[in-house]
Each structure stands twice: as structure tokens, then as C-alpha cells.
């Protein structure tokens, strides 16, 4: 979900208000919790696929939303198969994938600025408790923006590991990755200050 991969297309889903889409996402994910049978999962899958078609999202773009889950899905399916029956294991795993796919559809069809604005509106009542809605919304967009940056740092660290023949060393991967991410966070904070976020 957190790829920040908004794709501009002339679809009805793109024109829906961000707040409405977030609310619908919450309702749909709650609804998915209640789907228990393989037939129900089949219907839900068809519905999600239909929404991707309505949103004019290409198959490769849709796959990119759930692809990062593949190892997690394999692990959870394996565990479920050990502790329950096949239909229940498939049903649970499919519901997780569908929820992520729906969340991905929201980010694919909604600009981050619109999501931020919707989140700011939704969080306004929490001002009385000292929550700054603008800061929370900014935090969300920074998280989205940072995913490809952190992935880039990880890729460079892995390349350096390979170049030095340290492919199997977890420490040789983790230490420079953490240092790189902290350095990025430091500079990002400076950049936010330079761009007037302390006004």
C-alpha cells in the first residue's frame, strides 16, 4: 500500500472524495472480517477485481500492491494449514490480501494531498486532546515518501555487501541500513525546517 503510486486516470474512482474512499475502505475491511466461506471469499475477490477495473488500474500496477505480501502470505498460509482446515486457511489468507489490495486501490486512485486533507478533517476533533491534525497527516505522507527512499538505501547496502562477499551477514546489512535511514531522517528534518515547517 505504501508506495505512493498515485496513477492519474480518468476513472469514476479517481473522482470520488478521499474521505469517502477512506470511510468505504474501513467499512469494506470490516465487512471482509465477516466473510467466512470460500464462496464469500470468491465474491469478495470478484468485487475487488471489479473495482480495479472500474479504477482503470493495470494488472501490473495491481500486482505491485500485493506483491510485497508474498512471503508473508506463504508463511501465514502454512501456519493456518497446520492449525485449521484448507478452506479456513485459504479464506483467512485471501481476506488479508484483499484488504491490502483495497487499501492499495485507495492510494492508487487518490492524491496524497487529498488523503492528507481528508485525514486532517477527520482528526480535527482531536485538537482538544492536543493532537495536531496537520502534523499527523504530514507524517503519513512522509511515511509514504520514505518507502522508496529506504528501499533505495537497502538496495545500495545489499550491493555493497555483495561486493565485499558479505551476503549472509545480517549485521553487515542491518548496521549500514540503520545508519543510512537515520542519516536520511536527519536531513529530511532539516529539509522540512528549510521549507518552513516550523512556521
Amino acid at each position, binding site marked *: 500500500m505504501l508506495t*505512493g503510486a498515485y496513477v492519474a486516470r480518468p476513472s469514476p474512482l479517481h473522482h470520488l472524495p478521499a474521505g469517502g474512499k477512506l470511510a468505504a475502505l474501513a467499512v469494506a475491511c470490516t465487512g471482509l472480517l465477516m466473510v467466512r466461506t470460500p464462496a464469500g471469499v470468491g465474491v469478495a475477490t470478484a468485487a475487488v477485481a471489479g473495482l480495479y477495473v472500474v479504477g482503470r488500474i493495470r494488472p501490473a500496477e495491481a500486482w505491485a500492491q500485493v506483491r510485497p505480501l508474498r512471503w508473508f502470505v506463504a508463511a501465514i498460509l502454512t501456519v493456518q494449514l497446520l492449525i485449521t482446515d484448507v478452506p479456513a486457511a485459504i479464506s483467512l489468507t485471501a481476506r488479508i490480501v484483499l484488504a491490502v489490495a483495497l487499501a492499495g486501490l485507495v492510494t492508487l486512485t487518490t492524491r496524497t*494531498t487529498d488523503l492528507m486533507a481528508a485525514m486532517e478533517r477527520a482528526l480535527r476533533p482531536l485538537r482538544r486532546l492536543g493532537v495536531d491534525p496537520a502534523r499527523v497527516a504530514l507524517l503519513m505522507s512522509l511515511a*509514504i*515518501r520514505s518507502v522508496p527512499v529506504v528501499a533505495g538505501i537497502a538496495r545500495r547496502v545489499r550491493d555493497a555487501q555483495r561486493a565485499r562477499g558479505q551476503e549472509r551477514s545480517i549485521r553487515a546489512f542491518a548496521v549500514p541500513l540503520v545508519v543510512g535511514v537515520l542519516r536520511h531522517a536527519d*536531513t529530511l528534518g532539516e529539509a522540512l525546517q528549510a521549507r*518552513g515547517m516550523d512556521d
Partner: protein
Amino acid sequence: MDKVNHAYDERRVLRDVQVTLTERRVAVIGANGSGKSTFARLLNGLVVPDDGEVRVNGLSTRTDGAAVRRQVGFVFTDPDAQIVMPTVAEDVAFSLRRRKLSRDDTARLVAEHLDTFGLGGHADHPAHLLSGGQKQLLALCSILVTQPQVLVCDEPTTLLDLANSRRITELLAGLSQQIVLVTHDLDAVLSYERVLVFADGTIVYDGPPADAVKQYRMMITGT
């Protein structure tokens, strides 16, 4: 800058720096660790000096930091650290948040500036998919959309190839803002009006570019 001293923990990075920058084009050169970047950060209040005073158009960076930053834009070496929004147009629009413009006015300004920087066709593209040169153009665009009076650039071409480096240098040359450029590109500074040479936290030469470059080369080679 009035008798400015600054240190990071035990390491003194600037010593008694005293300078007034009135020229439209000022370049800063010097070896790594000579204090150039700290000098640049002092100019828009990202760093507040331990001792001394930095004033921009009469405003102190110590007491009016936010007001100074509204007048002084800052371009970092690594555009990835400066681009804070996921898509190109959103990042430029982010700079306009504090101006409380209408949605239409923001969209118009963003589109105009993206066209000026040759990024009009990339408005809805994820920023991380741009090339290095395009990212630096976007970083510049996001700063200049706020129309700062001064632009401080900390090695903006260091991570770029020759073609993109030239493009950014030419773009900076055409701007109406006062520019303070920190760079290792000795060819780029030749068109500047004034060049400061830094060594060990002090300005060791301050004058016209040709003499400054000659002085710097002598310092490096020892001849």
C-alpha cells in the same frame, strides 16, 4: 555575519567569520570539512551560531528563524532528502501550504512552475522514479515556487552527471534571486561576482573568481 563561531561538540567548524554578502552571485569553495556547508546553513537559520550574529535583511536567524527561512530558500546536495511528497506536483504544492491559496490558484502556480522547469509532463509521476537531474530540478522548483529573495545551494550538482550539472548551473545563472552557491565545481564559479575560499573554518580568500580559484588551487597543490 558578525564574528560567527560554531562547533559541533568538540569540533570547531567556523572561527570568527565576518562577512557581508551584497553581490547577486556569491560562490563558496573549499575542501571537505572546511566549514562551507555550516556557513551555508547559517544563512537561513538551519544552524544558529554558538557565538556571533547572522542577519538577513536585518532579521536575526537567532530570533526570527522562520521569517528568515521565508526569504532564504535552501537547496540540498541530495534531492531525495529534500523531496517530501510522493508525487512531483504534490511536492511543489507542499511549499505553498503556508500561503493559504485556493486549490485552483495552487494548481495553476504548480503547473506554471513545473512547465518552467521542464517537468510539466511529470506532474503526477512518483518523485522517486525521476532521474537524479530531474529530482534536483524538482527540488529547485519546489523552493523557487515560494519566490525567495535569496537562494542558498549546498553542492547542488555533486551527485549529478556532467549534462545535468551544466543544466542546473545554467538554470541558477538565469535566476533573479541573490544566489550563494557552495560548490566543488571550479568552472561554475568563474561567472560569479565574488568567491569565498574556506579553510579550517575561516575565510582565507575573498575576492574575484579567477584569483580565488588560483588561490584555492595553490592551497591544494602547495605550489
